[in-house]
């Protein structure tokens, strides 16, 4: 890949806007002066104490007292105060405790040796101490950095969308670097070039116009732009390209926070490299999301292409057959109607009638499924009685078909509570299921509609036939659009069960197929029971009713 960003260059740019770095330095220099003064004061105190206790007589113990204080200063206050203390200590020791007293002149060689070694020991001690402290600090920083990165990567892995990725990433970046940041990305919905949405750690925000040009430039050149850079140095944000394997996937816009968090303790350039690592992780996560979105879109495209083809080949055939019959039969009547024998004429009329009805049913199921798929299916829930819905289905089917007695059996508990359903849609589900059962199981077998409650949560409706049934491996497929069984020369388009599933699922239920005990197909579906359903009253029977029973 081209143009990995020059780390040093970006670090410099980032350093300019990272508030913590600047503020941290100021804070430390103020503290340092104070620490230096404390160190000098401590040395002064030791000198006075030494004089008061008669330290001039026992310079060995006095030197050890000085070393002791310098050691404490080195541990507590750091390297610089310790060196200052060591120097001040050497001077004070010389001035107050080595003859001639009250002068920095040293007359004896061994006195000079004592003073010099005291300074050297103190300096060595402080240097070692400082090195240890630096190592511990680096280890602590490294640990924090690993922790931050780990937390970031974990959150990024849990994110399920570009928005989630960006908000998670930004939360970590803002916490880790003490800045406020946004990500500009391209939302895949339209094919336009460039960024069309901005995401902050709180979610989507308005895309600011002035962002766009600079961000676009940064993305194109894979270089940081904006505040403090050669490109648009006066901008309020620094735009930092998020580049992954396929190039720039977004731009991180970083802005100095007006009130940087006080407890921000990352020192020096550390947060910069942390920020860069985080940005890198974010870029990769965004790319991952983009790729999976593209994959999904491609799958949907393939699937809808498949469906379109199925519609064109299968449906056009199914629709053309009745149309052909209608056209040819009616043209026969138009052309030769008066020459045809009465029997043939009524045969033609009957054919037209039947095929027109079939065509009408086909078109209805096509329209229904189209409406379902396009999300146009409106579920008008109301308190409904399943007994009534089943009653309507039976009435309609028994009007349309010539059925033997006991062909359709029902079992509906009389105390079944009302359900929150769309009666028209559920009636359609039941019609489709019962119609299928009657069509495919043959007229010699009864079809049963059985309703039971399962606990107080749902109602189970079963449509049971005792026909040939279908192999178990077709159970899952029969609900697919345009699916028709292997040896199914039935009259439909293979949409009835698709529609049934769509409607049942829109009601929060499930639908599935299973074997009927003893042979045949059973289709079952559930409908949720509402907790506050109006209960059916037990009917009050009068004497007259009892006389004839029910």
């Amino acid at each position: 890949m081209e143009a990995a960003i020059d780390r040093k260059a970006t670090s410099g740019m980032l350093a300019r806007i990272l508030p913590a770095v600047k503020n941290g330095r100021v804070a430390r220099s103020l503290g340092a002066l104070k620490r230096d003064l404390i160190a000098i004061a401590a040395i002064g105190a030791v000198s006075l104490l030494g004089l008061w206790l008669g330290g001039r007589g026992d310079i060995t113990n006095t030197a050890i007292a000085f070393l002791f204080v310098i050691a404490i200063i080195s541990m507590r206050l750091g390297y610089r105060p310790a060196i200052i203390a060591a120097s001040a200590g050497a001077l004070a020791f010389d001035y107050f405790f080595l003859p001639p007293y009250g002068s920095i002149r040293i007359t004896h060689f061994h006195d000079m040796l004592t003073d010099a070694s005291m300074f050297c020991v103190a300096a060595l001690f402080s240097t070692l101490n400082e090195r240890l402290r630096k190592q511990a600090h680096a280890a602590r920083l490294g640990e924090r950095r690993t922790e931050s990165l780990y937390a970031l990567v974990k959150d990024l892995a849990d994110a399920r969308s570009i928005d989630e990725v960006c908000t998670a990433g930004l939360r970590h970046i803002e916490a880790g670097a003490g800045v406020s940041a946004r990500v500009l990305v391209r939302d895949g919905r339209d094919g336009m070039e460039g960024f069309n949405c901005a995401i902050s750690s709180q979610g989507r925000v308005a895309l600011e116009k002035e962002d766009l040009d600079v961000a676009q430039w940064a993305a194109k050149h894979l270089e940081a732009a904006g505040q403090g850079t050669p490109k648009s140095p006066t901008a309020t944000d620094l735009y930092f390209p998020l580049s992954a394997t396929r190039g720039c996937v977004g731009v991180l816009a970083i802005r100095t926070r007006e009130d940087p968090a006080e407890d921000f303790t990352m020192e020096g350039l550390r947060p910069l490299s942390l920020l860069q690592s985080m940005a890198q992780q974010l870029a990769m996560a965004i790319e991952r999301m983009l790729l999976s979105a593209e994959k999904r879109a491609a799958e949907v495209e393939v699937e809808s292409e498949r469906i379109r083809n199925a519609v064109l080949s299968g449906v056009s055939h199914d629709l053309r057959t009745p149309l052909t019959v209608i056209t040819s039969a009616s043209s026969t009547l138009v052309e030769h109607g008066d020459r045809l024998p009465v029997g043939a004429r009524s045969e033609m009329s009957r054919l037209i009638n039947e095929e027109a009805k079939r065509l009408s049913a086909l078109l209805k199921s096509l329209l229904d499924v189209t409406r379902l798929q396009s999300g146009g299916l409106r579920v008008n829930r109301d308190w409904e009685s399943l007994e009534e819905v089943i009653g309507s289905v039976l009435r309609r089917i028994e009007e349309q078909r010539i059925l033997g007695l006991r062909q359709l059996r029902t079992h509906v508990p009389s105390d079944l509570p009302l359900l929150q359903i769309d009666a028209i849609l559920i009636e359609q589900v039941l019609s489709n299921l019962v119609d299928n059962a009657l069509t495919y199981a043959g007229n010699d077998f009864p079809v049963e509609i059985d309703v039971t409650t399962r606990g107080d949560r749902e109602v189970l409706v079963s449509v049971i036939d005792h026909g040939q049934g279908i192999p178990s491996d077709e159970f899952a497929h029969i609900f697919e659009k345009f699916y028709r069984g292997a040896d199914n020369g039935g009259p439909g388009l293979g949409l009835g069960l698709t529609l049934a599933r769509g409607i049942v699922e829109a009601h929060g239920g499930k639908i599935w197929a299973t074997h009927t005990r003893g042979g045949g197909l059973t289709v079952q579906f559930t409908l949720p029971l509402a907790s506050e359903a109006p209960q059916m009253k037990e009917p009050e029977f009068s004497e007259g009713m009892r006389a004839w029973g029910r």
Partner: protein
Amino acid sequence: MGAVTEGASILLIEDDRKILRVLLTNLEAEGYHVVDVSTGQRAIEEVRTRNPDIILLDLGLPDIDGLDLVPEIRKHSVAPIIVVSAREQDADKVKALDAGANDYLTKPFSVPELLARIRVALRSHAQVGGSPRTTIVFGEYRLDLEGRTLLRGDGHVRLSATEFKLLATLARHADDVVTTNVLLKEAWGTAHYGKSGYVRVYMHSLRQKLESDPTRPRYLINEAGLGYRLRTSGAE
């Protein structure tokens, strides 16, 4: 065909010429006297001047919304109105029935079905004539609206007050579709508008009392998404 429906006059409000043609042929072949109009304006004039026995109204008219036409017609005529609608107009159907239409047909419908609906509507409304009926007979039942009694043969069927109100409302509009809203208003008052659950619960207990197989009712017919009708004829 009974004497009641012989030569009755029908106002056919339909703007599609081909459908009109088919309906005209069939209705005239049945011996009805048909007047056809294709606009709402003309329909109102015809209702005022000719006072037809029954009105067939297509809800999709070019000039006036069929829904607005129903109350307009009701100002001038008590004749039964059968609304004809496309399948997508379910909501309109309820509104038309609430506004005073008596029955509905959904396109595409078969001619025999249409003729059957016309016959039933003419028969039920012919008896209304002057004073409203006080006794309605359906199957082996005899409902006396004034005496507030329901007899099955010689036996007395006891109904609760609410059940009776519901049954009486359905009986007063015998063979018409009565919407759930109308039933609620008649039995509970307007305060319970929209609480269709009440109606379902009481219709359930009415079915338990009156129907030998409540899942295959012969008299208390449910019209999904619309309401109920009490079938007094054609249930045989």
